[in-house]
């Protein structure tokens, strides 16, 4: 297994403001987590928080080690709840989208 994995990550619904005001990112992250297990979405979230997020307001993205309420996670255009949620093991080239729900009208 190669040491790294390439992914597309996208932030929308205002979350891009927490990530240098850029929606689309191509990232290269370790293919396994510190415990040696294959990188899953839980590890991706931690990794993004530590490596990609410059904004100090971490609680606007994570809460209790997962994404905060009001954020949908889409894996290759499907709700992550259809894919195993945080346990989904990432595949090279996967596209993961984080969507903050809007409330205005």
């Amino acid at each position, binding site marked *: 297994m190669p040491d790294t994995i390439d992914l597309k990550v996208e932030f929308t619904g205002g979350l891009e403001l927490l990530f240098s005001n850029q929606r689309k990112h191509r990232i290269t992250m370790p293919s396994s987590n510190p415990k040696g297990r294959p990188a899953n979405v839980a590890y991706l979230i931690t990794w993004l928080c530590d490596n990609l997020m410059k904004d100090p307001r971490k609680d606007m993205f994570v809460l209790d080690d997962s994404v905060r309420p*009001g954020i949908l996670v889409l894996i290759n255009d499907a709700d992550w709840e259809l894919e195993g949620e945080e346990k989904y093991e990432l595949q090279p080239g996967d596209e993961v989208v984080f969507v903050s729900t*809007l409330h205005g009208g």
Partner: protein
Amino acid sequence: AQPRRWPLEKHEYKRYGRQLIMPEVGLHGQLRLKNARVLIVGVGGLGCPAAAYLAGAGVGTLGLMDGDTVEESNLHRQIAHSTARVDMNKTQSAMEYLQSLNPHVNYNRHEFHLTPQKAIQIFEQYDLVLDCTDHPTSRYLISDACILTGKTLVSASALKTEGQLIVLNNPPRPPGDALGGPCYRCIFPKPPPAESVLSCGEGGILGPVVGVMGVLQALEAIKVLTARAQRPANGGDWSTNGATSEAAPKATLLMFSTYNTPQFRSVRLRSRRADCAACSAQSTISRQSLTSGSLDYVAFCGATAPINLL
């Protein structure tokens, strides 16, 4: 009394002719629209265009609910109001516009903000509800009331340059019936932190962005109201036969983002959640808890500042 020879009146064939001649609507669909009662909660950036196109299409009864008055800062996007009607209640202002567009619709005004106490009794007077409000508090309340009264909910939102739309409780089924569509709590079991919630006043909004979402709400409402038992043959999936599955229906989220490529994206979300507080067999939310006022939606959403419920 003599039996009516024509199911619609003469002027209705003329007014609705351009949609009547389409197989997706037809006489059957036009009569369903005429017999339909639709409630629009919030007559702002979403509710104005949604009301215009639903009134235009000939929905029989259109309910408008809003406790706010028109402000000048609304007018760049709230196209059913007018400069002369600044300070007027929004339902009154919109009704003046809608009456002049289509006087043959029966308009009901609900000149106040929605409360848990009133929700059940009002929603029971309608067949379908549009959530055109602007706060999580009202979004949870409207969804719960739609589950308890068995109404399909067309929910949309917009902020800055983006919009989202989702059709919930479609088809509408009682709590515990897995063949009903998911509700707002199935998708968002916990409310977002209050400090993450931006209003259009705080975050800003581009007029056509919220306009597009409101018009699409009207379209989804018309699709639900005119749908026959069987979907038309030209429907969406790659299947080569018309088999209908009895699987638990999923919701689809439509996302719009003005400066993104592509601008629109459709995503399949989940079906009903087995432990949903509103629509599952384990539901803890009842008509009684709403009408008694024992459910505090403001506290649930952790609003830090006092807000109007709507």
